[in-house]
Structure formats: structure tokens, C-alpha cells
């Protein structure tokens, strides 16, 4: 079947009941998307499906025909990190890093929908991404800083 991932077509063979997380990791060697629980609880496998965050461990790959899949691999350009990635680095919002790809995807989806989310909106929207290292305050600060920077950039124009 044909999958569109990060804007590029991929022709892959998949089993009928295969999860998108398995297809990405095992067939396409796109190992940026992590699998923590494989049952919809931790958020490490978060990808964007038609720009909306979902748990790829619960998505059947066969249901993705004709849909736009975005993963962590498509977030940075060849020589520049995405602003959300940069903010995670500046705010030291990473400890072991296992949850980070999922956190970044959720944050990008949130900021694309709401340029300036409130603290409560950030907390609610990111609540489906667990961090076992407990970096929540720094993750929160990182997401908030991207929103604030975007507003400033707008004001300067």
C-alpha cells in the first residue's frame, strides 16, 4: 500500500492488523517514533494524522491510505531544528529523551491550532504524553516559550 509520510510517498507491504507504530519502526526503519506501552497510555508513539495527534500504536496502518502522516523525522529541516525542538533544548526539557519525540509532536499540533495557548490549555493538551523522568515543568516552559516567541515575532512585523 501507499503511505504518505512527511510529504513523501512510501510503498510498503503491511499485514492487515499491523499498527502504524510497527510499520514506521520495523518496516521503514523510522525509529524516531518510540513505543512505550503499545496500548494507548503513554504517548511516546504520538504522530500527526491529518495534522491531529494520535497514538500510532493503536492506529491500523491499513486505515492510513490517503492520509497525511507526520512524524518526528519530518520536523526539522536539513540544517535547522524546528522551533519546538530548539525550545526543548534551551529549556533542558529532556532527561532520558524517550518521551521527547511524542512530546514534540503533541506540542507542534497544539501550537498549530492555538498560537497562544493558556497554561491550562498546554497542560490539558499535553496530558496524553507521559514523562517518566518527570520533566513536566520544563516541557511546559518550553512549549510556552515557543508561543511567546511567535507572538513577539508577530508584533515586530
Amino acid at each position, binding site marked *: 500500500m501507499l503511505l504518505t509520510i512527511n510529504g513523501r510517498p512510501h510503498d510498503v507491504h503491511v499485514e492487515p492488523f499491523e499498527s502504524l507504530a510497527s510499520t514506521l519502526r520495523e518496516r521503514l526503519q523510522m525509529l524516531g517514533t518510540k513505543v512505550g506501552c503499545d496500548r494507548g497510555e503513554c504517548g511516546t508513539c504520538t504522530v500527526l494524522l491529518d495534522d491531529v495527534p494520535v*497514538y500510532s500504536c493503536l492506529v491500523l496502518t491499513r486505515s492510513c491510505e490517503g492520509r497525511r502522516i507526520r512524524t518526528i523525522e519530518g520536523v526539522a529541516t536539513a540544517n535547522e531544528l524546528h522551533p519546538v525542538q530548539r525550545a526543548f533544548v534551551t529549556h533542558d526539557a529532556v532527561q532520558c529523551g524517550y518521551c521527547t519525540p511524542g512530546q514534540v509532536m503533541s506540542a507542534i499540533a497544539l501550537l498549530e491550532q492555538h498560537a497562544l495557548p493558556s497554561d491550562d490549555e498546554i497542560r490539558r493538551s499535553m496530558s496524553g504524553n507521559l514523562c517518566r523522568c518527570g520533566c513536566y515543568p520544563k516541557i511546559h516552559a518550553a512549549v510556552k516559550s515557543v508561543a511567546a516567541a511567535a507572538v513577539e515575532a508577530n508584533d515586530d512585523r
Partner: protein
Amino acid sequence: MRYSYHRPASLDEASDMAAALPNARFIQGGTDLMVRIGQGRERPGHLISLRRIGELTTIDANREIRIGAGATLSDTLAHPDIRRRLPALAQSLAALGSRQVRNMGTIGGNLCNASPAADTAPPLLVYDARVEIRNGRAIRCLPLAEFLLGPGKTALQAGEILVAIVVPDPPEGTGSAFIRRGRVTMDLAIASVAASVRLNGGASIAIRVAAGAVAPTPRRLTAAEAVATPTDDWSRAAIAAREQIEPITDLRASAEYRRHLTGILVRRALTMAAAASGQWSIDR
């Protein structure tokens, strides 16, 4: 074993497939079914995805509010008529799972899965919702209370498809509310309560209460409704509710705690619903 995945484009096609394929299961968001398949608790031979069927995802709020069974929890929560006219349902959707779960999961999946803790059920019960079921080429309707039969059990017969949930528009002056308590936000409820109240001055005209996670199915608490009155701060309603439920002890909470908690939630939900009806303030 031979197994396969199907994506019918219409309800007719889906019904025909289900009739022709034994050991097939319907799948919408997969947030319940995929977990069970992953754990090996369920091994369907075929999965019939209903996601391509456009008419299952529409929400029509012209007179009655008709929510397609395949509408995602996110789309239902974002619908302005649902927020305005069915606030207790919106509150239950906001409390359900995480953003990712709501983007994938559907309202029909929540009911068909028939968890005693299904969060959308108590509000839909107080709103007197009914369900529309497709059986081959025929349609049948049932009150939601007759659809939910037990843990994981519904009135659906083999091959039947839940098509829509239909909610009568609550009359002017109705207030409603939903509250739940869980161990953490991303866990199923220990107990949940929805209430709707229509008052005339201090006198009650119509009061409805339903609870989740404290009986084999989410259910209306008719005994509590019968004695509910704002003049005693809803105390008798709380006591009657504690009597009418059948809680169990499980990893989330003990039966005793669930009983205690339900009394408190009934009182709070009624207080909030009455306040929302605009006729009775919380801090009298």
C-alpha cells in the same frame, strides 16, 4: 489463520460484509478494540472499519441533536450546539482520556464497548437519549438504557451497526452537569454522576440523575430522582443514590468508597445542575 481488514464505503456494504464474514468485528477509532487485540483478549478474523462511511460522522443539531456513532470524541466536544445545549455531555467528553484518545475514539465506540465506566453514558442517560441501530436494511431504535446490558454487553445482535445517538433538545430552563472522580486524569472513573434539573422557583419540575462505574452498566438512579429536592440540599437524593447502586471492589477503589463517593457526587452534580438552570444559586 486467515484474517483481513475491510473499509466499506456505505452502511449497506458494511452490513452485507458483516453478514457474509463470520468472526468479523467493526472498528472505529480502535482505542478499545486495538488494546484488546494487542493483549490477545480478542482475536477477530476480520476487521470492518466504519471510518469511510460519511453519514456516520455527521452531527445534526437542527431540532433533536443527532450524533453519528462515528463522530470522534474531539469533534463532538468541539460542536457548539453540544456545548451549549448538552453541557453535561461536553463535560464528560472533556474528561475522557487524553487529546490523542479523543481524536481517535468515537462516541459510538464508547457506548458499544459498554464499559460500566463509559463516560458519555451517564449524561446521555439523563438527556433521555436513544440509539439508532442498523440491522441489514432495517433501522430500529432503542432507549439508551435498554441498549446497555452489562459489562461489554449491548443489545446489538451479530452484524448490527450502531448508526446514531439521538438526544431530544432539553427544555428551556434545564441545567445539567457531569462530574467524575478517577485516580488520575488518564484513568477510568471510580465513580461518575450526571444530573439534570429543571426548577420552577424552588419547586422541582424534572430531575434526572445517572451514575457510571458503580453498577454493571451506567444507569439512571430513579430512587434518587424521586426524592430529590433542593430544599434539603439534595441530602435525601444522595442517600437514595447510595442505596440504589451496586458497586464492586476492584483495583481502582473499594465498593464502600464508591458508595460513599457516589453520595457526594450526586449532591454536587445536582447542585451544579440547579445552578446552571439559573433558578437556584449555589451560595444561597
